[in-house]
């Protein structure tokens, strides 16, 4: 019967593909190691360039899964192409119909049992990574952060350090000898959001009435790019996220600076008065002043941030002014209202904000 033949051929193919797969696996593992050693912050948030322990665990698992699925693809795809070429009807010949074959118990048993074994292996490998990432216990040296998702920006609080900031998360680099991972509690003030910085970790959602958590353990300093990954409303697209991984010294310096109250500079008293007498303070806080709103980002150290409007624009004089004058022109649909200030007031207010270093 043709099926003995089929089985033989299939096995030949299997062996061939297996050899290929092993070569590929070797190459993949090599690549995994090299990327582990050299991963840097990149403007392209590539999930295959992990720079933090959870992202790296996922990366290793992903290479394993890719290898197995790649093998299946080669084998089944090869069989399909072989069948299509080999068993095509040649010409318009009208000879006898091919022999009807209704099934084969051995063959069907084989292609039931083998997938079961593959599934078992995949499951065990996956479960191991799930537990290693989800059940990690924070060491005493861990930095604790609370991230709160808002429409359409990020609030970051460091309860132990007494720091509040927005949109740009600063965390220390964690060296394997003396790990200082960052554990993040994830909350939402309104709709669902998702914290995703691909090079540092997989995404976890921020859901109202729910406490989620995740951790980052970055190995290299730099700026890592990410953004909200769960549709949260009109401006979901420009809810960008920057994570600054600092050296321990830089991080300590940054924390010290953030803990300072806002700069009080009499030269900008006029702008400050405008800020405190308009609706700005309903939403924004500046420590040491009457402004203590909580609906928008804390502005105490606004100028220490590289971007405004949750990454929608660089924090330059012109952008800042435009943002106050007409938020919709930078980020249509954002919840910040236009304040309708006259040109003079707008200048004064911008000048004031620019002193908040």
């Amino acid at each position, binding site marked *: 019967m043709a099926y003995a033949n089929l089985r033989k051929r299939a096995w030949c193919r299997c062996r061939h593909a297996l050899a290929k797969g092993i070569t590929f696996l070797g190459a993949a593992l090599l690549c995994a190691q090299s990327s582990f050693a050299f991963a840097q912050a990149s403007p392209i948030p590539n*999930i295959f360039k992990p720079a933090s322990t959870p992202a790296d665990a996922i990366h290793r698992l992903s290479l394993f899964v890719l290898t197995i699925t790649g093998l299946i693809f080669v084998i089944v795809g090869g069989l399909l192409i072989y069948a299509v070429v080999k068993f095509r009807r040649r010409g318009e010949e009208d000879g006898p119909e091919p022999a009807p074959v*209704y099934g084969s118990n051995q063959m069907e048993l084989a*292609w039931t049992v083998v997938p079961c074994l593959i*599934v078992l292996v995949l499951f065990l*490998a996956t479960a191991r990574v799930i537990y290693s990432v989800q059940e990690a216990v924070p060491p005493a040296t861990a930095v604790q952060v609370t991230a709160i998702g808002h429409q359409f920006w990020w609030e970051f609080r460091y309860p132990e350090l007494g720091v509040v900031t927005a949109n740009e998360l600063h965390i220390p680099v964690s060296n394997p000898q003396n790990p200082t991972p960052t554990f993040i509690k994830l909350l939402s003030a309104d709709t669902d959001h998702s914290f995703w910085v691909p090079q540092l970790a*997989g995404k976890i959602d921020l859901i109202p*009435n729910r406490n989620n958590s995740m951790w980052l353990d970055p190995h290299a300093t730099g700026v890592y790019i990410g*953004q909200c990954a769960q549709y949260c409303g009109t401006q979901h*697209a420009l809810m960008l996220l920057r994570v600054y991984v600092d050296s321990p010294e830089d991080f300590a310096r940054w924390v010290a600076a953030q803990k300072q109250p806002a700069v009080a500079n009499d030269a900008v008293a006029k702008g400050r008065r405008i800020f405190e007498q308009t609706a700005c303070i309903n939403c924004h806080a500046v420590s040491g002043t009457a402004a203590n709103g909580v609906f928008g980002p804390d502005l105490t150290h606004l100028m220490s941030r590289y971007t405004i409007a949750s990454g929608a624009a660089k924090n330059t004089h012109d952008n800042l002014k435009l943002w106050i004058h007409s938020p919709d022109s930078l980020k249509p649909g954002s919840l910040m209202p236009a304040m309708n200030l006259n040109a003079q007031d707008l200048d004064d207010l911008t000048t004031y904000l620019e002193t908040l270093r």
Partner: protein
Amino acid sequence: MSTESIALTGVREPSRAFGDWLTSWITTVDHKRLGILYIVFALLFLVLGGIEATIIRIQLIAPLNTFVSPRTFNRMFTMHGTTMIFFAAMPILFGFANYFVPLMIGARDMAFPRLNALSFWLTAFGGFLLYFSFVGANGLYGAGGAPDVGWFAYAPLTSKAFSLGHSTDFWTLSLMVSGFGSIGTGVNIVATIVSMRCPGMTFGKMPLFAWLNLVVFGMVLVVVSPLTAAQLMLCVDRFLGGHFFDTQAGGSAVLWMHFFWFFGHPEVYILVIPAFAFMSEIVPVFSRKPIFGYPIMVGATVAIGFVSMTVWAHHMFTVGMSAYGNSFFVITTMIVGIPTGIKIFNWLGTMWGGKIIFKTPMLFCIAFLFQFLVAGLTGIMLGAAPFDWQLAGSYFLVAHFHYVIVGAILFALFGAFYYWFPKMSGRMYNETLGKVHFWLFVLGFHLTFDFMHIPGLLGMPRRIYTYEPGRGWEVWNLIVTIGAVVQGIAILIFVSNLLYSMFKGKLAGNDPWDAWTLEWSVASPPPEYNFLTIPEVRSRRPLWDIKHPEDPDWKYE
């Protein structure tokens, strides 16, 4: 069975005035006419959903593009998803089931013809409700326009606080109404298959098409009901001040996710099992061999039906379930791959040793096998929860499910269109145009959906109306949009081929493919009563038995 019904020719109806013609279609309870109504209705919505997809792709062709506003973009992807799943894919597959299940089991109509008509019109009304939101959602709040909450409408975006006006109300009402339609059709098809099979057609001798649709509509009954219930609960929240999903009053966002995905994941199988059904009819005929391993094909389908209802929370790996919960849904998700893999091997086994004829329907089926394989493998990647923490909600995911819905389901549907067009219209399609459609569509499909995986791996989330330059996403998005245009052209060729052939094609005769199931024993198009005398069958391939009396199937099965 008697040969009498084979020789039967179509009954020509006398030409009538347009009004009579229209009334006859609106008031029809004939399963074939309702099937065609479903298909025509679905094609209309396919075009609408396609236009929305085109707008999405034009907006994303370049970074910082301003073709549409963020709000419009959000409406487009919401309407695209809702339209394609509920008002294109489902009705078109329901249409084929409506048309061919009674014919294949030797019945003269469905078990409940009037319920059948009611179900169709409910579905149609749901579709019109959804689109009426474009003009009718302008409530007192001026929030008008179509819904912009995404096709799975996660709470609390749908609550009063975040969704002003009535756009979300139109969304939820339209799904509720069409949900009742789906449940009606589910009851009807299950009852038809269980109780209206012709003499001799035991469950073991039913065509796979009927078996697979039995599983599909059984699933419809189980999973569409919770979705419809969830829509009712959302209505209670929005109209009566309930708090099921209203998080600001202590409601649960995660509860909605469970409701939605308990429907949403089996829904994938509700769409893909009919595609399996097309495959299981077309592949044997064009390989000139009976289906390989009929009992295991049935068993695998029933297994998929059950297991697919235990996997829903793999859509929720990122919502912070426990490690135990995540592991559970990993194993169930991977298990559902086993019966699916079995089916692929059995189609391969059917082709193996056959004489494969490369007519257009078979070409689409071969492409289905290849693309469904890829979609299954990316599905395994997404099923490995930690890998999913990276891939969920990214363009990789979008590419994956379009590989399933376009690469597998739509390809199988095109195969089904070409295969049964001669039966439904009485005329052959143009083979050359069919092949041009196939190759263009393959090209466009792979340009779009192969390259769509890449920006996902580079961190591009779905549902963003724009992106900044320098993230490494530009070139992939450009290619994806070009592919979408090619697919559009291919579909135009398909539509013109069907329209042209409907009037000018060669007459097809009863059985142009030398096929084996009962629908090919009657005239093309079939007469209103289907069978002059109810046939009697002795095997799974009754027409084979008639054509080969010296070597009938019933001696071997």
